[in-house]
C-alpha cells in the first residue's frame, strides 16, 4: 500500500480530534497551530473549516497557537499557513463530514447518496432528519486518512469569498493585543538588554534606580541580566530609564528552577518551539510550560516576540505569584531583536547567438537566515545568552535548502536555462544576530536576478518583458508576466516624467507566481508612484485578504528598497528609533492594482511573501530606465542616486 501524502501539519498531528470537536450544541471547535500575525489567517482557516464541514461560519470557535490546546504546527512562517495548515484543516473537515454522513446513513438505514449536510444538520432528500454533528457523537479519536474528497471548485460557497476578518472589529476601539492583557495580578517589567552580544554587565547605580522608581519598584538580577519590576508601569519605566542610563557594560548559570506550571503569553510565530527553548534555557520540564499565542503588532519575520517571552518567563520564576508583563521598548526591538541577514549576490552569464544565457552562475554570500528558538539545535533566546550559564551555542547553520533555503531561497530562476550553477558562501559568524525576515534570501536574490535579467535583455537588444517570455515555458509564469504587462500598458510609453520597471518571481519556486510593474519618478530621490501586480496563487481562500497581503508586501518592500538600512556605532545598532530608521509614510505610498488570475482548480499557494523580491527588482529596473545607470546596492538612497547621476 502506498501511504497517503498528508500535509506536514496533519502527519505531525494525525488525530481528527486534535483539529476539530463538537463540544457543545451548535458550536464547532476548530484548532490551528498557526497564529494571527495580522495576515488574516484565522479568518481563512475558519472559512476552510466551515466550507468543508458545511456549517455556518458563525458556528466556528477557532483556537490558535496554544501549546495546551492546539496541534503543533511549528512556526507560522514561510507563506505556508494556508497551504499546509489550511490544507490539513480542509482534509480533516472533509473527512469528518464524510464520517457524519456515513454514521447518519447507518442510523437512518438509507444510502449516503440521499443525504446531505446543511449548517451542520443532516438532510435526507433535502428534508430534516433530526440528526446533526452534535447528536451523532462521532468518534474522532482516530487518525486522519486524508482520503475523503474535498469539495470541487464549483461547490465552494465560503472559500473564495471576501469574508470579513474576524479579528478586525476588536482592533477598532478594543483591547485585543498582548500589550492589553491586564489580569489582576499583573506586574510590569522592563529588562535591560546587553548592547552587544557577549557584553558583561559591570555596574549600575542601584540606589538611584530605586529612587527614580519610588515605592513598589524592585530590581531583579541574574547573570548579565537586570530587570525592573513594579505594580505601576510609569514608575517601572522611570526606574528603567535610570537603569539604562547608569548601567555599564563591558565586552555566564541560572540556577535550576522549580516551577510547577509556567504559562507564557507571547506573539511568537511558533508557540511549540518557543516552549521547548524556554524550558531548555530555564531547565524546566517542557510539560510544565504552556505557551499561548496572543496577538501583537504585525510580524514580518523573527522579531523580538520570542525574546520578550523569555524575559517574562525568567522574571516569572523570580516573582512566582504574579503575572509578569514585560514591555520591550522601541529601542529594544530595533536595537537587539534579530536583523535581516545582509547579503551580497554576484551573477554572471554569457549569451549565445540567439541571446540565450549560457554559463549561468550565481554566488550568494550571506550569514544565517534562521536563528529562531530551536533552530540549528540552539535555544536562540537573547536574554538566555546573558545568563550566568548560557545554553550551549548552536552550530552555525542556515535554513535547509530542502525546505526552501535561507540565503539560497529563489537563488535558482524558473527561466529555461540549460544550466544554472549556484554557489552558497555561508558566513558562519557575524557580530549581529541575523534571522528570518519576510522572504529570507528571496529578497536579495530576486532583486539581483531580476535586475540581471533586465541587463541581459538590454545586451540582447530586447524589451524586458519580451525577453523574459522568450525564456519562459511555464504557462502559469507566462500568464502572470503577460497580465502584469497588459495591466500597466507596458507597450505604451510611461506617464510624462516617469519610468517603469518589470520583475517576475515565483516565491521559493513552489509558491505563488507574481509579475509586477512599478512606475517611478526620479529626481534626487526615488518615488514609487504606481504598481501593478498579477498573481497566480491557485485557489484563493479569501481574495480580499490575499490582495491585502500582496499589496502590503509591496508597500513594505518599497520601504525596504528606498529607505531602510540598519546603522551601527560602537559595535551596536544605532538606528533604534523611527527617526534614525525611517520607513515609508502615507504620503509616499504608491497606488497599487492587483489581479488574482490563478485557476481555482489548482491548490492554494502561499502568497504572504511573494511581493518582496520582485518589488525591489522592479524598482531598480525602473530607476535604471529613468537614470540610464544601474544601482546595485540597496537601499536606493538619495546619496546613491546622486552618485549614479554623477557617474552617468
Amino acid at each position: 500500500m502506498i501511504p497517503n501524502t498528508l500535509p506536514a501539519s496533519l502527519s505531525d498531528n494525525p488525530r481528527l480530534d486534535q483539529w476539530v470537536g463538537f463540544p457543545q450544541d451548535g458550536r464547532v471547535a476548530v484548532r490551528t497551530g498557526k497564529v494571527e500575525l495580522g495576515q488574516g489567517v484565522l479568518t481563512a482557516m475558519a472559512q476552510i473549516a466551515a466550507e468543508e464541514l458545511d456549517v455556518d461560519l458563525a458556528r466556528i470557535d477557532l483556537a490558535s497557537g496554544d501549546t495546551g490546546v492546539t496541534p503543533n504546527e511549528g512556526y507560522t512562517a514561510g507563506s505556508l499557513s494556508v497551504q499546509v495548515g489550511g490544507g490539513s484543516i480542509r482534509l480533516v473537515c472533509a473527512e469528518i463530514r464524510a464520517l457524519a454522513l456515513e454514521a447518519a446513513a447507518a442510523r437512518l438505514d438509507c444510502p449516503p447518496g440521499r443525504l446531505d449536510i446543511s449548517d451542520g444538520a443532516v438532510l435526507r432528500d433535502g428534508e430534516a432528519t433530526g440528526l446533526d454533528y452534535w447528536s451523532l457523537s462521532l468518534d474522532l479519536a482516530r487518525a486522519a486518512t486524508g482520503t475523503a474528497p474535498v469539495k470541487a471548485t464549483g461547490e465552494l460557497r465560503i472559500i473564495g469569498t471576501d469574508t470579513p476578518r474576524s479579528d478586525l472589529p476588536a482592533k477598532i476601539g478594543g483591547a485585543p493585543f498582548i500589550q492589553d492583557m491586564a489580569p489582576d495580578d499583573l506586574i510590569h517589567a522592563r529588562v535591560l538588554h546587553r548592547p552587544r552580544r557577549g557584553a558583561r554587565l559591570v555596574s549600575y547605580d542601584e540606589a538611584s534606580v530605586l529612587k527614580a522608581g519610588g515605592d513598589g519598584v524592585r530590581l531583579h538580577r541574574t547573570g548579565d541580566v537586570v530587570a525592573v519590576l513594579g505594580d505601576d508601569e510609569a514608575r517601572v519605566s522611570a526606574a528603567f530609564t535610570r537603569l539604562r542610563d547608569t548601567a555599564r557594560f563591558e565586552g555566564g548559570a541560572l540556577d535550576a528552577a522549580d516551577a510547577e506550571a509556567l504559562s507564557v503569553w507571547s506573539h511568537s510565530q511558533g508557540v511549540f518551539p518557543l516552549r521547548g527553548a524556554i524550558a531548555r534555557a530555564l531547565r524546566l520540564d517542557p510539560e510544565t510550560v504552556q505557551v499561548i499565542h496572543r496577538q501583537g503588532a504585525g510580524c514580518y519575520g523573527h522579531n523580538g516576540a520570542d525574546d520578550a517571552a523569555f524575559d517574562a518567563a525568567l522574571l516569572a520564576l523570580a516573582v512566582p505569584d504574579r503575572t509578569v508583563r514585560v514591555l520591550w521598548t522601541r529601542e529594544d526591538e530595533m536595537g537587539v531583536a534579530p536583523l535581516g541577514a545582509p547579503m551580497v549576490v554576484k551573477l554572471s552569464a554569457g549569451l549565445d547567438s540567439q541571446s540565450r544565457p549560457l554559463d549561468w552562475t550565481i554566488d550568494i554570500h550571506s550569514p544565517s537566515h534562521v536563528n529562531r528558538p530551536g533552530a540549528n539545535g540552539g535555544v536562540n533566546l537573547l536574554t538566555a545568552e546573558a545568563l550566568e550559564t548560557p545554553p550551549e551555542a548552536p552550530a552555525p547553520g542556515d535554513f535547509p535548502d530542502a525546505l526552501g533555503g535561507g540565503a539560497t531561497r529563489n537563488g535558482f530562476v524558473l527561466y529555461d536555462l540549460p544550466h544554472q550553477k549556484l554557489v552558497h558562501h555561508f558566513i558562519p559568524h557575524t557580530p549581529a544576530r541575523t534571522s528570518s525576515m519576510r522572504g529570507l534570501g528571496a529578497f536579495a536574490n530576486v532583486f539581483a536576478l531580476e535586475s540581471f535579467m533586465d541587463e541581459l535583455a538590454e545586451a540582447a537588444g530586447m524589451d524586458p518583458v519580451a525577453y523574459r517570455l522568450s525564456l519562459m515555458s511555464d504557462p502559469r509564469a507566462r500568464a502572470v508576466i503577460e497580465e502584469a504587462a497588459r495591466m500597466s500598458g507596458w507597450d505604451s510609453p510611461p506617464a510624462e516624467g516617469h519610468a517603469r520597471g518589470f520583475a517576475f518571481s515565483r516565491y521559493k519556486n513552489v509558491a505563488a507566481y507574481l509579475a509586477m510593474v512599478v512606475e517611478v519618478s526620479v529626481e534626487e530621490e526615488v518615488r514609487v508612484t504606481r504598481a501593478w501586480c498579477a498573481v497566480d496563487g491557485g485557489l484563493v481562500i479569501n481574495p480580499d485578504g490575499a490582495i491585502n497581503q500582496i499589496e502590503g508586501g509591496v508597500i513594505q518592500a518599497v520601504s525596504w528598497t528606498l529607505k531602510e538600512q540598519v546603522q551601527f556605532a560602537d559595535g551596536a545598532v544605532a538606528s533604534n528609533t523611527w527617526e534614525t530608521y525611517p520607513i515609508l509614510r502615507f504620503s509616499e505610498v504608491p497606488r497599487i492594482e492587483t489581479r488574482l488570475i490563478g485557476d481555482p482548480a489548482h491548490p492554494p499557494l502561499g502568497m504572504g511573501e511573494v511581493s518582496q523580491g520582485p518589488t525591489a527588482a522592479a524598482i531598480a529596473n525602473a530607476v535604471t530606465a529613468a537614470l540610464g545607470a544601474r544601482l546595485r546596492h540597496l537601499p536606493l538612497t538619495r546619496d546613491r542616486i546622486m552618485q549614479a547621476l554623477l557617474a552617468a
Partner: protein
Amino acid sequence: MEVEIALHVNGVATSLNVDEAAPLLHVLRNQMGLRASRFGCGLEQCGACMVLLDGKPTYACSFLAIDANGRDIETAESLAGHPLREAFLAEQAGQCGYCLSGILMSAKSLLDSSPAPGREAIIAALDPHLCRCGAHERIVRAVERAGRLMQEQSA
C-alpha cells in the same frame, strides 16, 4: 508626587490621583482601563498612542496627564457607533491593526473639522502615523468612506 486631576474622557467626567510624571497614555490604559490607545514608540514618532485633546490630535505617550486636567479627551473607545468604525470594517482597512486606534483619532479630528476633506488632506492628516503592514491605501479609502457616511447622516 500624586496630584488629583479631573478628566473628561469620552464624555464622562472622572477625577483621579495621578503621578505628576505619568504620561496620559499610562493613566488611560493602566488607571482607567481604556486600553484601545496603544504604546508604540514612546517618542512621538509612530502615532499609535494618538488621542484627541480638546479635539486636537495629541501624542498620549508623552503628554503629561496633569496637563490634561479639566480638558476633553477622546479615545478610540468612543467610536463604537461612529461611521469611522463602519467604514474601516467595510474597507477591511488594516492588517495587524496596531496602528489603527491612533489613525482613527487623527481621522476623526480631520472629519470633525472638514467632512469632505479630499484625498490629499487625508494623507496629510495621517502622515504622522506609521503603518508597518502596508494597509495605507485601504485606510485612506476608509476615511473617505467615513466622510461620505457622515455627510449622508447629516443630510
